[in-house]
C-alpha cells in the first residue's frame, strides 16, 4: 500500500459507562468492572442500562448542552478529548481540512419522544412543539455539533449504520483521508439511545431486553442464562490521519487501520447471517493482506441475544478455527452502546498493543454449547505476551456488517 494510503489512529476520546477516558476504560475492562446500572425510562417499569457519567461542561457551556442533544454532547466531549490526546496544535490546524465522520445507530428518537410527551401535557397543542426540534433531530446533528464546538469548516456527516456504525465511522474516515477530502478526520461512533424509551420497549416486545437482579450480571454473551440486550449510551472518537502526516508531526500512533470491510446480509430485518458475517471478516483480512492466523484478538460483536451469539460464533469458527486468535467481548461489561459500540469495543482493546493483555468477556458462567469458541477469553483477562493485530466485528439490523482490522505501527 502506498504510504499516503496508510491510515493511523493518533488520538482517542471516549465516554463509556465504565470510563471517561481510555486509561479508566481499559483498567475497568481488565478489572472486570461493569458499567451497567438500574435505570428509569418513560412509561416502562425500571430497566437496566449502561449510563455514562462524563463531565458535559468540560467542553460546553450549559446553554450549549441545553440547545443541543445528548448525542451531540457525547460527540463534543469525545472529540475534544481525542484532539487533546492527539497532540495536534489545534489552533494551527486548517479547519477546512478537518472532516467529522460519526457513526450512529439512530438519531432523533429522543427529541421526538420528548416533544410528544411535552405536547401531551398541553392537550396535544402543536404550538408548544419546540423550534429546537428540527436542528436537534437532523441526522447530522452529533457531527454538526462537533463542527460548531471545534470550529471545523470541512465536511461533516453521520453514518447511519445501525449497530455496525462505530466501525463505519472509522472506515469513512479512512476512505475520506485516502481521497484527500480532509487531512485530519475526527471519527468514530456515538449513541444517546438510553434516552429513548422506544428502544427499550421495542427490544422488550421482541423478547430481547435483558433483565437480572444484579445489573452487572445482566449482559451475558455466549452464556445459556443470557436473556437479551442491555442498552447503553456512549461515544468512541479518534483523530485519524494519513501515516505520512502523522509521521511528519511526530505523532503518537496508537494503531494502523490495515483492513476494513462492510457488506449486507440481504436476508432478514433483524436476524443475523453467519455466512455474510464470515464473508465480511474474510474480505477485511484479504484487504489487509493477512490471514486469520495473523490476528491476535478478535473483538466480538455478540449482544447476548441467542440468535446473534450463535450466528457470530458460527462465523468466527468458520474463519478462525485452528488459529490462536483470542476472542473477547466488551458488551458484557457496558451493554450495547449502539452507534458507539464498534468504536468503544475497538478502542478498549487497543492498549493490548502495550500491555499484551486480552480483556475478557465477563458473565460467562454456563457457556452455550451452540456457540462454544475455544479461544474465548472467559471472565478473566489473558496475558497474550505480545499483541500485534486486532480484528473488530460490528454488526447491525437490516443485515449490515462491518469489520475493522488494526495493527501496531512499526516504523
Amino acid at each position: 500500500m502506498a504510504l499516503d494510503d496508510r491510515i493511523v489512529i493518533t488520538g482517542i476520546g471516549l465516554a463509556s459507562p465504565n470510563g471517561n477516558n481510555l486509561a479508566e476504560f481499559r483498567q475497568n475492562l481488565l478489572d472486570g468492572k461493569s458499567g451497567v446500572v438500574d435505570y428509569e425510562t418513560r412509561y416502562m417499569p425500571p430497566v437496566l442500562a449502561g449510563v455514562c457519567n462524563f463531565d458535559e461542561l468540560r467542553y460546553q457551556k450549559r446553554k450549549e448542552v441545553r440547545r443541543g442533544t445528548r448525542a451531540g454532547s457525547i460527540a463534543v466531549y469525545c472529540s475534544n478529548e481525542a484532539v487533546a490526546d492527539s497532540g495536534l496544535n489545534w489552533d494551527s490546524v486548517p479547519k477546512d481540512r478537518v472532516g467529522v465522520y460519526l457513526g450512529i445507530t439512530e438519531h432523533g428518537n429522543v427529541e421526538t419522544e420528548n416533544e410528544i410527551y411535552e405536547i401531551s401535557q398541553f392537550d396535544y397543542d402543536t404550538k408548544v412543539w419546540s423550534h429546537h426540534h428540527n436542528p436537534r433531530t437532523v441526522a447530522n446533528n452529533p457531527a454538526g455539533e462537533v463542527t460548531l464546538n471545534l470550529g471545523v469548516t470541512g465536511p461533516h456527516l453521520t453514518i447511519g449504520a445501525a449497530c455496525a456504525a462505530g466501525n463505519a465511522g472509522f472506515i469513512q474516515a479512512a476512505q475520506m483521508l485516502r481521497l484527500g477530502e480532509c487531512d485530519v478526520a475526527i471519527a468514530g461512533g456515538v449513541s444517546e439511545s438510553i434516552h429513548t424509551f422506544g428502544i427499550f420497549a421495542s427490544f422488550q416486545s421482541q423478547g430481547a431486553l435483558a433483565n437480572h437482579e444484579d445489573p452487572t450480571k445482566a449482559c451475558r454473551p455466549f452464556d445459556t442464562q443470557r436473556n437479551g440486550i442491555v442498552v447503553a449510551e456512549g461515544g468512541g472518537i479518534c483523530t485519524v490521519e494519513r501515516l505520512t502526516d502523522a509521521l511528519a508531526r511526530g505523532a503518537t500512533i496508537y494503531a494502523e487501520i490495515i483492513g476494513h470491510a462492510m457488506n449486507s446480509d440481504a436476508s432478514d430485518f433483524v436476524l443475523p447471517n453467519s455466512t455474510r458475517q464470515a464473508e465480511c471478516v474474510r474480505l477485511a483480512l484479504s484487504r489487509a493482506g493477512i490471514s486469520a492466523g495473523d490476528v491476535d484478538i478478535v473483538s466480538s460483536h455478540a449482544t447476548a441475544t441467542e440468535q446473534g451469539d450463535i450466528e457470530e460464533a458460527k462465523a468466527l469458527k468458520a474463519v478462525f478455527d485452528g488459529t490462536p486468535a483470542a476472542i473477547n467481548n466488551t458488551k458484557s461489561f457496558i451493554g450495547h452502546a449502539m452507534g458507539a459500540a464498534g468504536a468503544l469495543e475497538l478502542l478498549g482493546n487497543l492498549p493490548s498493543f502495550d500491555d499484551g493483555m486480552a480483556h475478557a468477556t465477563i458473565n460467562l458462567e454456563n457457556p452455550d454449547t451452540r456457540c462454544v469458541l475455544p479461544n474465548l477469553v472467559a471472565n478473566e483477562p489473558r496475558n497474550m505476551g505480545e499483541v500485534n493485530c486486532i480484528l473488530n466485528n460490528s454488526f447491525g439490523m437490516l443485515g449490515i456488517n462491518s469489520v475493522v482490522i488494526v495493527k501496531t505501527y512499526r516504523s
Partner: protein
Amino acid sequence: MTGVEIRQAVLEILERIAPDEDLSDLDDAVAFREQMELDSMDFLDIVMELRKGYRVQIPEEDYHNLNTMQSTVDYLTPKMKDVPVAG
C-alpha cells in the same frame, strides 16, 4: 400578575434559557441582546416559555416588544393581568 411578578417570571425564563449568564445586574432599560448572548432561537424560547407557562400568545409582529425587560413587562402586563401568580 403584577408588573413586578411578571418581571420575576421573565427573569426566571431568562435564567433557564441562558444558564451561563449572571442576570443579577440586568438593566431593565437596556436591550437583552446588549447584555446577554441571545440569538433568534433564544427569543423564540422566551415566547415558547410564556406560551407554555402562562398561556400567553405573542404574535410575531409583536416580538419587537420583547426588546428590554421594561418593554417586555409593559407589553405583557395587560395580557397577564388575570394570570394567577403560580402561572
